[in-house]
């Protein structure tokens, strides 16, 4: 308890826990639909695009979020379109876009200031990089995500389970895909600075996978995914504080541990 008290006596720590917890919540809800639609790698691709955009913004001395959010939303559109009907196969397209974006980011920073601590923190995350504007953005984002998932829950289920059936019965599936793409893009941009470019996709994929090993219906998967994500985030950030290891990595490892436990629990319960 005293450790927790000590931890929360730092203002930046409270800020990181609030922002990170909310982002973890959003990422886990979006993650369930992304994983089920086989779009999990889009999260990975988008975070790399986010890295490129943040690096360019830093060199140009522009506000990082103002540059990164629109660029990543644009990339999300592009990736969705490509994976739906392009000549390039979805996974190859993501690989192409994400490595190019990283390359652009690295080249731009080396030409101007050289690889520095900021770039390192974008790669692997830092809880010190969060500002007041991130608090506002993450609260706003999570309110929107929660509203969307509560009000459109049944439509989201229908579109995720069978897009063709939903569309044939008059659901505007294209519109839903765009909405989810925008929310995913914002979640990634906000989350990647705590988690790091290389690790944010874990926040999207892990909770969904863990829940699916244990739960058999969509509603339980959604709820447990949100709970697992927030709990893992909290445990991860405490561990990172105690052991002085990078936050993103310790959160991902906590998620990995939970995934292994869920897989074992699923086997024991005979879910698989």
């Amino acid at each position, binding site marked *: 308890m005293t450790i927790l008290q000590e931890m929360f006596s730092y203002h930046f720590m409270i800020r990181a826990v609030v922002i990170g917890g909310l982002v973890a919540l959003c990422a886990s809800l979006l993650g369930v639909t992304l994983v*089920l*639609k*086989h779009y999990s790698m889009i999260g990975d691709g988008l975070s790399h695009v986010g890295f490129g955009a943040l690096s360019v913004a830093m060199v140009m001395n522009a506000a990082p979020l103002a540059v990164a959010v629109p660029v990543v939303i644009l990339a999300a559109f592009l990736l969705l379109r490509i994976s739906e009907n392009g000549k390039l196969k979805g996974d190859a397209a993501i690989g192409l876009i994400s490595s190019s974006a990283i390359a652009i980011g690295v080249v731009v920073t080396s030409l101007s200031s050289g690889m520095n601590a900021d770039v390192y923190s974008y790669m692997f995350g830092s809880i010190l990089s969060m500002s007041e504007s991130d608090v506002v953005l993450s609260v706003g984002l999570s309110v929107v995500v929660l509203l969307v998932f*509560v*009000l*459109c*829950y*049944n*439509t989201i*289920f*229908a579109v995720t*389970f*069978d897009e*063709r*059936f*939903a*569309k*044939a*019965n*008059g*659901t505007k599936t294209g519109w839903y895909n765009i909405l989810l793409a925008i929310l995913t893009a914002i979640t990634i941009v906000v989350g990647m600075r705590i988690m790091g470019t290389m690790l944010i996709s874990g926040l999207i994929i892990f909770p969904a996978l863990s*829940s*699916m090993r244990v*739960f*058999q*219906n*969509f*509603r339980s*998967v959604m709820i447990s995914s949100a709970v697992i994500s927030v709990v893992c985030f909290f445990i991860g950030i405490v561990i990172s504080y105690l052991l002085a290891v990078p936050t993103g990595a310790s959160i991902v490892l906590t998620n990995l541990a939970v995934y292994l436990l869920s897989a074992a629990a699923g086997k024991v319960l005979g879910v698989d």
Partner: protein
Amino acid sequence: MLQVSVEHVSIAYERTTVLKDISFSVEEGDYICVLGENGSGKSTLLKGILGLVPLQEGTVSFHGETERTHVGYLPQQTQTQKDFPASVMEVVLSGCLNSKGKRPFYLRKERETALYNLKRLGIGELKKKSYRNLSGGQQQRVLLARALCATDKIIFLDEPISGLDPVATSEFYQLIEQLNKENHISVVMVSHDVGTALKSANKVLHITREGCFFGSKEEYLQSGLGAEFLHAWNGGETK
């Protein structure tokens, strides 16, 4: 009573025309079997009728009480679906999406519709089971129940028996025939199982690269196209 009319429809896929000048109509109570070789565009035609792919030419119109957004569609299953963590009830309820409108939640009325359709297909006891743990035949029945929640007028089935074992196949055909004969639900079914499908159908739409044949089953069997196709089919059977 006329339900759907398809007039001179052509559909192109990645700039190549796959379907050319298809015309046919569905009358209430029809059981139409859509035949054609692999790659002749049977599934694409269903998608075109339901507005899932754009038409290059021609028109599709729904008449009377049959609405474009109230149709029962049973698409070919994807791998994603087979492993989807959803309860049977959740899947079937999603068929009520179109009657739900802008309301965020389902009402008792829709839950009752879902349960009614599960029971009518003989799978009422599965409602709490997980979809991914069902057998192929049970999964198809669940998807059929979902389709029936969306409509009680017309269902479009896209190769519904592929991957089913013989017992499940004949049970599924019986269900469809029952829905058609007893509940007067029109059936439009794409199938490559010509022999069995023709038993229950009253009309045939045969698609070829040049165009299509549409007429009653008797007319089809007497036509050159029908005789040739059935001959090839039977030849495949005896090998």
